[in-house]
């Protein structure tokens, strides 16, 4: 299992039955592959559909049915489509139970940066600012480090995406819960020690007495 799959599998454990969930572009999109059996989760794509399904077989795609990255998707029975104003009314209005987003940095206050690196990379925020502001739970799914540097930092050096404290950070090394008191280490990735996580993390961590291993669900 590679790091991305592990992160996606762990994030999928946060899904709950009969909830409305938005998955960001990139790694978070993988989460849809690992929905625990028996759960009915409706995935929203901010370009205007709720209840979308897997990419149809070659030749059966509809050019009018894509995800927020422009990739082809299908529609589950009972899907609903709508315009961008309604899509963000759902997001901003608190109707979204959860969003899983990628991150560039999360800091000790639980703030997220994920939309620009000044002077270098300016993709734009797309729907991320609304998602972080409006979703009931915000889960960040990302690598623990980039180019050898911890992405979990004492204080954001990149522009924040929102004021709000995110709810959970899932990386290839750990699961960390931002709390009012700081970053709480909740779980270790399989085979990773608490000491290794602390060493790889630039921000201070609160370490409980017991830190269990990440649950990753059953296999496909």
């Amino acid at each position, binding site marked *: 299992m590679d790091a991305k799959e592990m992160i996606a599998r762990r994030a999928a454990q946060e899904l709950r039955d009969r909830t409305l969930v938005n998955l960001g572009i990139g790694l978070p999109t993988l989460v849809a592959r690992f929905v625990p059996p028996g759960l009915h989760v409706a995935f929203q794509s901010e370009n*205007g*559909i709720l209840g979308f399904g897997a990419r149809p077989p070659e030749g059966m795609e509809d050019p009018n049915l894509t995800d*927020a990255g422009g990739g082809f998707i299908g529609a589950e029975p009972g899907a609903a489509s709508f*315009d*961008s104003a309604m899509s963000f009314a759902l997001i901003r209005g608190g109707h979204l139970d959860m969003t899983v987003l990628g991150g560039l940095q999360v800091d000790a206050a639980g703030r997220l940066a994920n939309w620009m690196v000044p002077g270098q990379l*300016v993709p734009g925020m797309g729907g991320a*600012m609304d998602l972080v*502001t409006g979703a009931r739970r915000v889960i960040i799914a990302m690598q623990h480090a980039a180019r050898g540097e911890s992405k979990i930092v004492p204080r954001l050096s990149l*522009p924040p995406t929102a004021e709000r404290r995110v709810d959970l950070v899932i990386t290839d090394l750990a699961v960390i819960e931002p709390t009012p008191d700081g970053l709480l280490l909740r779980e270790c990735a399989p085979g990773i020690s608490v000491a290794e996580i602390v060493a790889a993390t630039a921000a201070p961590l609160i370490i409980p007495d017991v830190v269990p291993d990440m649950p990753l669900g059953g296999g496909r």
Partner: protein
Amino acid sequence: MRKSISAAEAAAMIPDGARLMIAGFVAVGSPERIIDALVARSARGLTVIANDTARPGLGIGKLIEAGCVARAIVSHIGTNPVTQRKMLAGEVEVELVPQGTLAERVRAGGAGLGGVLTPTGLGTLVAEGKQVIEVEGRPYLLEAPLRADFALLHAQEADHEFNLTYRLTATNFNPIMALAADCVIAEAMETVPVGVIPPDAVRTPGLLVDHLLERMH
């Protein structure tokens, strides 16, 4: 019954320097025929209000590559490296707006509202220079309405009174942009007789649409 126009006629109506709303989401639901005609007539200095600048060779990406666009008001340019390059080179000015805020600003412009009060963007670069208004003890960013000279739409069906429907995720910004411009030009996949689209299926009433492109042959 109203008369439709060619894509070239549509492009000729749109002067250099015009402010355009262009529907679409990574080019899905974008009016490709009008865009092609704007590229063909070498439009210059356009301001484009849209979700994104699509990809090179696709939708608004074609306008960017052809040098038609001076300014883009969009929620992201992550899918188009050409836009990123032109922005860093100072050839295209880019104003980034959170997607939900963009949708509401367009909607406000079309609905006669004075602006949008949103929590999105508070405490970020987006809030710089903007007013924060407190309502019932909570802060909101005041974002101004957006309007344009032209809105360019892509519909699924149009009837000959220019009533429009949209399809699935090709809907996106089309219905809200239809209210927010002085002149609305649409292209459609199909043109059907008046009365064929049931009233509940019409998403944009034809009276909002100034021009419809001739059907493709």
